[in-house]
């Protein structure tokens, strides 16, 4: 009885899966050996022309022949295999034409490596909210968020690729991936983080390979690496006892960062020493007295989502200044070295978390070691990133607020 019931319930699903298109193989690859040879391509071209203009009955339609031409000319007739950040190998038999992104970082990276944003058919709701940073995405459909995805809308848009995170929200991302692959076998689900210093350069190159822009990908990866390597080299030879003591405060008062958090990693890349790194959890709340006792040499306060000022959405340096003043006025803080030396800074998570972390890390490095990084210009790096790689019309002089004091 068990099996029959399950069969009755599962059978329609099997039928449904069968009904959805099974896309495999390069269009025109008639012998199925995953190589589109010259003769296969020409046969496909003629078959298309015949069907389209001469009343013939071929199966190659316009989408197929455009993809076949692309594969033949740009991929040398062979499919592209990419390993995403979750370690899976994904094979592309056709170029991507309809992309859905759940991750703003992946979308930003796609833009940096020159992807045609017209081919992005839907974005997640957080991207939708960023009207200044993603102006061209405002009219695209909204497919919810990772924890609350609108699966029906995604399926209706018939994407050929969906971008999700690899190492955060894994259970939710795994669930979305499973459901997509079950109902539409042709969809490629790419898992990329695009916010971790350790893996980002590699991810840039892989994404560039996926969309077939190796040149642009290399250029952006070099731009990113030059900044980060510069910072790493500049701080490599500083002995542990000479490292600058940093107190990093999250959006909430007295919430700091510890070893599990990405912000701590960036502090360390910039050569800083976070005495609270050993605490448990990612964002431990510490005793205010411990900060005074620790006597940090530099204090960095994070603005952003939980403390909604600045960033791309607002141009309000005065508010950032107020936050800084409030820090300086905390009881007992006048004794802290950082306060006495005026080394108290506010930075926005838009440039320290996410795909732009290299800009924020450059600011950190400059604040921690102004002499070593005297010629490092994070502002210029930021502007170049926006104008040259992101291609958006955003003038840092008059728009947005990311650091204070500048």
């Amino acid at each position, binding site marked *: 009885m068990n099996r029959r019931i399950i069969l009755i319930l599962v059978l329609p699903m099997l039928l449904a899966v069968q009904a959805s298109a099974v896309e495999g193989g390069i269009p025109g690859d008639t012998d199925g050996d995953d190589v589109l040879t010259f*003769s296969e*391509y*020409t*046969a496909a*071209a*003629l078959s*298309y*022309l*015949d*069907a*389209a*203009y*001469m*009343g*013939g*009955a071929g199966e190659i*339609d*316009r989408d197929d*022949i*455009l993809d*076949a*031409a*692309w594969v*033949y*000319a740009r991929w040398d007739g062979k499919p592209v295999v990419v390993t995403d950040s979750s370690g899976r190998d994904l094979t592309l038999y056709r170029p991507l034409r309809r992309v859905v992104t759940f991750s703003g970082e992946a979308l930003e990276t796609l833009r940096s490596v020159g992807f045609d944003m017209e081919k992005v058919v839907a974005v997640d709701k957080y991207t939708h909210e960023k009207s200044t940073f993603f102006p061209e995405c405002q009219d695209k459909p909204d497919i919810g968020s990772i924890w609350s995805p609108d699966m029906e809308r995604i399926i209706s848009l018939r994407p050929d690729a969906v971008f999700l995170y690899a190492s955060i929200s894994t259970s939710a991302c795994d669930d979305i991936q499973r459901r997509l692959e079950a109902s539409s076998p042709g969809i490629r689900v790419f898992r990329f983080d695009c916010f971790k210093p350790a893996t980002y350069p590699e991810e840039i190159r892989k994404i560039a390979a996926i969309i077939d822009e190796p040149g642009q990908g290399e250029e952006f990866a070099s731009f990113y690496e030059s900044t980060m390597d510069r910072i790493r080299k500049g701080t490599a030879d500083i002995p542990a006892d000479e490292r600058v003591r940093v107190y990093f405060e999250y959006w909430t008062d007295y919430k700091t960062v510890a070893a599990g958090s990405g912000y701590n990693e960036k502090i360390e890349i910039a050569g800083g020493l976070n005495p609270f790194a050993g605490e448990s959890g990612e964002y431990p709340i510490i005793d205010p007295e411990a900060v005074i006792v620790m006597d940090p040499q530099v204090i960095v306060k994070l603005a952003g989502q939980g403390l909604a000022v600045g960033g791309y959405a607002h141009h309000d340096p005065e508010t950032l200044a107020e936050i800084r003043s409030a820090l300086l006025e905390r009881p007992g803080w006048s004794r802290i070295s950082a306060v006495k030396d005026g080394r108290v800074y506010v930075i926005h998570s838009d440039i320290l978390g996410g795909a732009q972390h290299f800009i924020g890390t450059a600011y950190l490095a400059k604040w921690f070691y102004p002499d070593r990084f005297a010629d490092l210009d994070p502002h210029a790096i930021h502007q170049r990133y926006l104008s040259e790689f992101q291609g958006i019309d955003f003038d840092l002089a008059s728009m947005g607020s990311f650091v204070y004091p500048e």
Partner: protein
Amino acid sequence: MRGSPADRLICLILLLMLVPAAAWGATVTRTLSTAEPGAGEVFEVSLSIEGITLGGVVETLPVGYSFVGTNHADDRILARDGQVAFALINETLITYQVRAPSSGSGDITGIWEDFLGESNGTIPASHLAVDGIETEVENTPKERPTQEAAPPFALLTAIVALVIARRGGQR
């Protein structure tokens, strides 16, 4: 794309008639060795192609004129019923030979497709007349969808409307 090939063809031809052809990026021009061939004479047609790396051209000959041969590679042409398709790989010049009938006039029409550039267009028509004598374009007993004439226009418009309606219903 759904809809039978005939529907698509009709729709496309109608579209080509109604929309002025504009060549973007790529251009294809046709020249004839003679616009007034003698009866039964074999003459040459040259297509000069610019800007297409991977693409195709489909030429449609007027009634009575027949395709004889070409300099283009054998495995990249398809000739049938007064139409010839050429699969293009970087060519800039294609020539092919046509035999004129004993009498008759008409236009050679053509389309081109650029697969990498993802665009297409029409090749301006070239007029032919045997010995320079113009004849009326008539409805032949053979169904030749490539020859458009005034009387069937209304019927074709109705078919196109049906095709569009059916496709719209499937969205």
